[in-house]
């Protein structure tokens, strides 16, 4: 039986290594942030343009600028993680067989590495993008930043959910040999159902029902509502419930993976 608890030092080391590997490229990544901030600015411009002719409900134009700033910033924690946690490449090279032989659970092993990646992205991508967008749009943190702790707690839950979802997408590579399309499909659903560009209450009723039946609203919409000071803390229970459900699914899919994997060649 592979234990999760006995390996905490290893998990910390894996996360630290993933963080350290990324930090080698921080100069290039900081430049990359301008492209991401440009995207955010573009979306904010669309809402500013719409705000000239229409009232933007409870949010108002400034509220929508804050909304887009926070969702664009959060993408690097809740969405832009390693495609399939690197499992598709392991499947292609056969490395997956060795990974399954390790005395650590595959999910915990890959999750630890991804937490290092996410920590790096939060510090070197999310925060700089947030600052650039705040400056470009002339905004200041809502309520002097007092809404941030709850928003960041919800965002940490979102990061865990995205790790679980990527794990399952990665595992699908054993059946499909190619899971990049699932990753992009997931990104598209994230844009639509997580409230990345449009607040969920503005979606048509049927699409709102579909969205709330999925984990997506808890990945961007809920953290953003907390940031805007509009979120009900009960939403965090939804985050917790989805984290538990996705963990269970990851465990079950690892079992299926162990039965499916076969080693070829000699």
């Amino acid at each position, binding site marked *: 039986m592979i234990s999760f608890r006995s390996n905490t030092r290893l998990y910390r080391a894996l996360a630290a290594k993933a963080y350290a590997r990324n930090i080698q490229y921080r100069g290039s990544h900081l430049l990359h942030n301008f492209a991401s901030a440009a995207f955010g600015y573009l979306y904010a411009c669309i809402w500013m343009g719409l705000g000239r002719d229409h009232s933007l409900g409870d949010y108002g134009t400034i509220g929508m600028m804050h909304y887009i700033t926070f969702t664009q910033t959060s993408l690097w924690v809740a969405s832009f993680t390693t495609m399939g946690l690197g499992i598709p490449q392991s499947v292609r090279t056969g490395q997956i067989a060795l990974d399954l032989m390790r005395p650590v659970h595959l999910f915990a092993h890959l999750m630890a590495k991804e937490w290092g990646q996410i920590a790096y992205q939060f510090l070197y991508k999310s925060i700089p993008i947030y600052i650039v967008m705040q400056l470009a749009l002339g905004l200041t943190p809502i309520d002097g930043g007092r809404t941030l702790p709850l928003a960041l707690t919800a965002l940490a839950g979102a990061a865990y959910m995205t790790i679980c979802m990527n794990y399952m997408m990665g595992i699908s590579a054993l059946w*499909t040999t190619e899971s990049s399309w699932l990753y992009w499909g997931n990104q598209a659903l994230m844009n639509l159902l997580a409230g990345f560009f449009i607040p969920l209450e503005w979606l048509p009723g049927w699409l709102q029902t579909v969205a709330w039946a999925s984990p997506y609203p808890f990945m961007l919409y809920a953290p953003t509502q907390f940031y805007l000071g509009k979120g009900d803390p009960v939403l965090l229970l939804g985050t917790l419930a989805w984290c538990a459900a996705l963990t269970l699914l990851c465990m079950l899919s690892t079992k299926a993976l162990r039965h499916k994997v076969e080693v070829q060649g000699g």
Partner: protein
Amino acid sequence: MNERKAAGVTDRRLALRNYIKLYLILIRTSIRSRMQYRFNFALGTLLAAIIQLSEFLMVAIVLAKFGAVRGWTMHEVGYLFAVMTLAKTLYRTFANEVHNLERYLVEGELDQLLTKPLPVLLSLMPRGFRLMPGELLQGGAILAWAFGEMLQTGQVTWWAVPQTLFAIVTGGVVLFAIGMATATCGFWTTRISMLQNMTEDAAQTAARYPLTLYPGWMSGLLLTAIPVGLVGYLPALYILRGELGLWVFPVLAAASCLAVLLALRFWKFGISKYQSTGS
């Protein structure tokens, strides 16, 4: 003297014909290799259609909620979206590897292409030839939906169909030129994905909406330095809204030719400065 000139022209024609023949053979090979993985192809097609649909739904939901964007109706914005999708499909079908040049630069694969007795572009482009039925169907369906409504209300006539096809072709050429110019920067910088995010992804997303939404400096930029505004917005002003004049079409043709010629010259200059990353 004249005979030598005539012989030169004939040689060039023969070479061009051989290039085209070779290009078609390479495309056929590329399609065959993709069809070895039929399930992947089917899954990729289905998911590409879903991605396109979700992207359009985002635009459609905004329009359904607010009615119009700076005076542009849902069908007009749908038209902008569809023309951009189809022009991008045209560009990425034939020149996907120009977009993926970074991989060749980082992994040193470009060195192999340089040793071939063919122009680099010609050996590069057919490699990534890909059929994109998902994008084609989705773009075509949105265009048909937009046209259906506008034909019914009399906003446009059937003449709009060939005019739009023309705009899609010139738009594809413009996107190719932008993609090639961006990729050329990789001969100096090796990494180009950040630049592509701005000149291709962000710019194309912006041009799915009427440019009047944006501040003046941004719409000016999208019509000149990164001319994605020429893909859907400029032709739509004439085709859908009767603004400007018929001169739009020769301007589009001239602008797309100029853009691709400038990008080609830049590419030739860039490749002369290329230094391998080594092994």
